[in-house]
């Protein structure tokens, strides 16, 4: 029951009691005093009524205040609950953060303990050194050479560093230098190898500007490095008896693309260069004279040379048929005034497991001045090698089998046909990769080379080669011997010859 109501009931009871007492008193007192008493009572009743009204107002006010307090209390309770929820969420989030931080900290500690990996370190250092970078590669070789006909043995050394300067991911400069210590010289002789810019215009077109290895066939460009050539010597049509210039100065456009499955590629190279030239030390051009090597004499002739090469790889990698390369090349240029040298060739390379084989056939047609018949030549070679890796002979110890599987036996047959040779040009001084055998200069030279390579590392090899020179009879030998016109004599049976070359070669 509300307090206000209790209070008013009490007042009413009190008033009634008072009136009862007043009645009793009046009965007891005299009647004269009744009026005065009644008046007083009325006055008191009024007073009581006024008090009651005031009390009611007070009660209402208190009631209102109480409602307000209750409302505030409810609000405070709600806020408190919200705060508690937020606190719980914060505690949960804090715990998750702490767990995550601890985990990451542990990972960082582990990484710090382990240190950076080599690729990470190398990438970081690469970034540190910048994008313009020099890289040195190349090769070196030392030969021991013995030729039976010459009856001499000697050493020769070559050092062939190659510098690459990479400007960005589409421009590369390349330059090489060749230092040779050959027999018959008092010191090293130096020559420049190649010097060119390789500019990749897009994924399918690249230009090469400068002095480059002749992209005719694979040999000069891809297989002539000391440690890349499986033999110590070059095959006859690319070595002592070169049929096309080994290098040239000019511009190439080249590129490759995949035409089928993975491994089924095709590529092209077209080029324009200063062109061929022949031994200018002779008083007059003759059939069979040798080509000049790397020089710029071609710039004095009447025209440029044009070359083209196309290669195709017919087998996809997943066919398990091995990797077969088929190529065709042509090279055509004026060697003097309006006189052309035209060359064409076809080649192949095949690789399957431990077997590798390659070969080529090429022909050249050289127009000669009036009065002389054409100077036509043919050359070829075919070679094969087989790695003995994986071969285990049960009767050999593990150590000997270890040596055995580093061996690669090889065989090569090469030959050149031409109508004549020039005696004044025949040099029998051995040099690195050349035995000096006179039989190699016969008009119809034939050579069988047997090789045995011992691979110390993928680019370090000790090679041994046994050459059998088996020239055929026939042809003409021109000899100037100081005169302005040559004397011609028939070449009869040229004696066979044998040579041994052994070479330690390293690619770096």
């Amino acid at each position, binding site marked *: 029951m509300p307090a206000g109501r209790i209070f008013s009931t009490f007042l009413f009871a009190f008033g009634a009691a008072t009136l009862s007492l007043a009645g009793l008193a009046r009965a007891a007192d005299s009647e004269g005093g009744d009026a005065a008493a009644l008046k007083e009572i009325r006055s008191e009743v009024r007073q009581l009524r006024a008090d009651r009204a005031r009390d009611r107002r007070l009660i209402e006010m208190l009631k209102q205040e109480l409602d307000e307090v209750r409302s505030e209390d409810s609000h405070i309770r709600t806020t408190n609950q919200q705060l508690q929820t937020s606190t719980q969420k914060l505690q949960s989030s804090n715990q998750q953060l702490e767990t995550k931080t601890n985990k990451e900290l542990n990972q960082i500690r582990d990484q710090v303990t382990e240190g950076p990996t080599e690729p990470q370190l190398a990438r970081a250092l690469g970034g540190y050194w910048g994008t313009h970078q020099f890289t040195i590669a190349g090769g070196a070789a030392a030969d021991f050479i013995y030729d039976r006909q010459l009856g001499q043995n000697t050493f020769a050394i070559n050092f062939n560093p190659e510098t*690459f300067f990479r400007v960005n991911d589409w421009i590369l400069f390349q330059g090489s230098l060749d230092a040779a210590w050959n027999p018959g010289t008092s010191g090293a002789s130096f020559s420049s190898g190649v010097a060119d810019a390789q500019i990749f215009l897009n994924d399918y077109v690249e230009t090469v500007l400068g002095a480059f290895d002749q992209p005719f066939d694979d040999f000069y460009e891809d297989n002539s490095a000391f440690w890349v050539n499986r033999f110590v010597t070059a095959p006859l049509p690319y070595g002592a008896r070169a049929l096309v210039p080994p290098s040239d100065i000019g511009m190439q456009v080249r590129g490759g693309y995949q035409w089928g499955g*993975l491994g089924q590629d095709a590529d092209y190279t077209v080029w324009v260069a200063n062109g061929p030239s022949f031994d200018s030390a002779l008083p007059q051009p003759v059939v069979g004279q040798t080509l000049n090597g790397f020089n710029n004499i071609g710039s004095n002739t009447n025209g440029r040379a044009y070359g083209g090469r196309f290669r195709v790889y017919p087998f996809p990698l997943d066919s398990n048929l091995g990797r077969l390369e088929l190529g065709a090349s042509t090279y055509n240029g004026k060697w003097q005034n309006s006189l052309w040298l035209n060359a064409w060739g076809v080649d192949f390379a095949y690789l399957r497991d431990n077997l590798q084989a390659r070969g080529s056939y090429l022909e050249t047609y050289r127009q000669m001045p009036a009065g002389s018949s054409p100077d036509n030549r043919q050359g070829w070679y075919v070679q094969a090698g087989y790695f003995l890796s994986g071969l285990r002979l049960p009767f050999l110890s593990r150590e000997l089998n270890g040596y055995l599987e580093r061996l690669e036996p090889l065989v090569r047959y090469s030959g050149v046909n031409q109508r004549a040779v020039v005696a004044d040009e025949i040099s029998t001084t051995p040099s690195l990769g050349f035995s000096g055998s006179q039989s190699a200069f016969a008009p119809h030279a034939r050579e069988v080379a047997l090789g045995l390579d011992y691979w110390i590392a993928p680019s370090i090899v000790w090679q041994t080669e046994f050459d059998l020179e088996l020239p055929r009879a026939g042809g003409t030998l021109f000899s100037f011997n100081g005169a302005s016109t040559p004397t011609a004599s028939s070449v009869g049976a040229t004696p066979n010859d044998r040579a041994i070359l052994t070479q330690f070669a390293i690619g770096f």
Partner: protein
Amino acid sequence: MAKLSKSILIGLLMIVLLEISAVRALSAESEQEQRKLFREGAQLWPVYCAQCHNARPGSEFSPVQWDSILMHMRTLPNLPAKDARAILEYLKGSH
């Protein structure tokens, strides 16, 4: 005015979140692409290199040196660009 500012703020926040998602997606795609290149390079390396010479392991040169050498090696055999990239990724990754 306050409502406009709030809308702009929410808009910016959404753009940032979308950017982060896009960058993460691209990064994941790039990693997948790198792994694919590495696998393809591992398949091509022993065959394409051995076409002329023994395949040299990635440890012989630093990744930076391989950048230059592979450019040269792409030129000589006219390697398709994507195959050259795969072999480069393999050699650098196996350094």
